[in-house]
């Protein structure tokens, strides 16, 4: 099932659901005809869309709202914080092209601090699916919840069949004693590749899909750091405020420590290009991740990375 199919099905089954967009229609193109007045396009007005969503939620509606990740979280930040966060309203933010998915757009469109700023708002929950299968498995619970929610939309196909979603729980893909990779979002597919290469090099490797970032699965983080010699946080996000920070917070809170290698963006925006080139240039392909962890070059073959379709 696709994102659009799930949203259509959910909105048709529940009259309270309102679909909104600030003129980003890539994943909701067929909704206007199906929902009529329950589809609202406010034009290029992220702030007004968020404020209006709060008003709709006051009346008992559940608005699922769409905009590009950087504009939804940053242009409209104060509206999310003040109108949705303070009031604790069930407004559901669906952000398009978060992280590396903004590929060729350039730094204006790079939401690589979105996790940090959204999780900093009291009441707002935060999710980052590994692929479309993971996305459609988590959204029914996210939309049913009474909490405001921010979800990084990721409709890539990895062929991985994810476990059922549980709010606040990570998905443990595999366990290992040498190294455990914690990741979320589209880098999951590169992590799968890295895991195979590391195993081929003789390491005992774990992989955890941190699909629910707030609430976060503290137990999974503590267990991984206790049983692995090295924990890797892998994310298409600034190193500040994202998963690396979350892991640090959880360890400190539990008076624990670990050997942690953050693979993230360090104080820089990434080089704009099509996604496969971005990953290669910035060092985030599966092979590059594996070699960073190993500390040496290998002869492993990096599989082709599919270019996403342009979505505005």
């Amino acid at each position, binding site marked *: 099932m696709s994102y659009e199919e799930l949203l259509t099905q959910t909105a048709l089954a529940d009259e309270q659901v309102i679909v909104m967009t600030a003129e980003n229609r890539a994943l909701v193109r067929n909704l206007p005809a199906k929902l009529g007045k329950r589809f609202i396009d406010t034009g290029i007005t992220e702030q007004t869309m968020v404020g209006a969503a709060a008003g709709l939620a*006051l009346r008992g509606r559940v608005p699922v709202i769409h905009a590009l990740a950087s504009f939804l979280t940053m242009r409209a930040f104060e509206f999310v914080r003040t*109108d949705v966060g303070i009031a604790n309203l069930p407004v559901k933010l669906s952000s398009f092209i978060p992280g590396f998915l903004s590929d060729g757009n350039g730094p204006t469109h790079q939401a690589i601090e979105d996790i940090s700023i959204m999780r900093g708002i009291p009441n707002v929950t935060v999710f980052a699916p590994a692929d479309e299968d993971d996305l459609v498995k988590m959204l029914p619970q996210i939309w049913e919840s009474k909490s405001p929610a921010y979800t990084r939309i990721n409709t890539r196909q990895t062929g991985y069949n994810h476990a059922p979603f549980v709010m606040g729980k990570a998905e443990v893909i595999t366990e290992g004693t040498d190294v455990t990779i914690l990741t979320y979002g589209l880098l999951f597919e590169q992590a799968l590749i890295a895991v195979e290469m590391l195993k081929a090099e003789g390491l005992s490797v774990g992989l955890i899909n941190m699909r629910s970032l707030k609430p976060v699965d503290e137990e999974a983080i503590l267990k991984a750091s206790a049983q692995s010699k090295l924990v890797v946080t892998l994310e298409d996000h600034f190193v500040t405020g994202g998963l690396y920070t979350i892991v640090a917070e959880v360890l400190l809170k539990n008076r624990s420590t670990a050997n942690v290698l953050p693979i993230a963006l360090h104080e820089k925006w990434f080089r704009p290009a099509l996604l496969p080139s971005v990953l290669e240039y910035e060092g985030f392909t599966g092979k590059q991740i594996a070699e960073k962890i190993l500390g040496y070059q290998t002869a492993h073959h990096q599989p082709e990375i599919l270019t996403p379709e342009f979505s505005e």
Partner: protein
Amino acid sequence: MENKNYEELTATALKVREHIIRMSTDGGCFTGASLSAVDLIVYLYSRFLNINKDNLNDPDRDYLFLSKGHDVPALYGTFAELGLLEKERLKNHLLLNDHIYWHPNTKIPGIEFHSGSLGHLPSVALGVALDLKISGSTNKVICILGDGELNEGTCWEAVLVANAYKLDNLIFIVDRNQFQANMRTEELIPLEPLADKFAAFGAAVKRVNGHSFAELDEALNAYPFQTGKLNVLIADTMRGKGLPSIQERADRWFCNFSAGEVEQLLLELHGEHNTTLTSETLVVR
């Protein structure tokens, strides 16, 4: 039957002004900005809106959003006079035993949404108006804006979107008291011709004396001003209305009077005294 007798409203407004003066001490409040909005707010709750102490959670009530949140003493004073809020609670202004502070919040019955950050509630009110249209309800939604607040671009975004969705159940009322925090609007960011600006954005606009119950009555009896159009009412008002010693003074936006001044100002409100203020003037916030 239209009630053309406004004596009761005049008496209520006078009492609301007394409440505002009494709240302008021990920490103070936005006195000037509150006094300009009194007559407007008293009129709306007394004669125009279907809002009373018994229907505050009824989905079929009307809605009022105070986007210009710093004039909330005018709203709390009106609530106290109309029985939505116990008068005694006004004495809790800025105290930890209650939730009455410089900006509105929903812990006070009758407050539909918190405000304080300007330019937010036009869009929140827009969302409520959209829902009423989708639901086929005929309730009215009012959003009161300050004139200085119109510097915020999101006010104008909301007008554009309201126009697109033909929200004739939504009324933006501008408390046009000619001042923003520190100076006259026309000296900082000129707004005139204001009615033309709203009209150019697709709204049906009326402009009245915001201290005249008869004019407010006449204008709002014509609601909706035009089918399929956002209603905008520009209420020309006076900052500090009712107190000659602070009226139209740029330095009397936020006031924190001494106890003695409060007593003198209460007399001044009733035309029985000329007050010489010695408390500090402008507090920039």
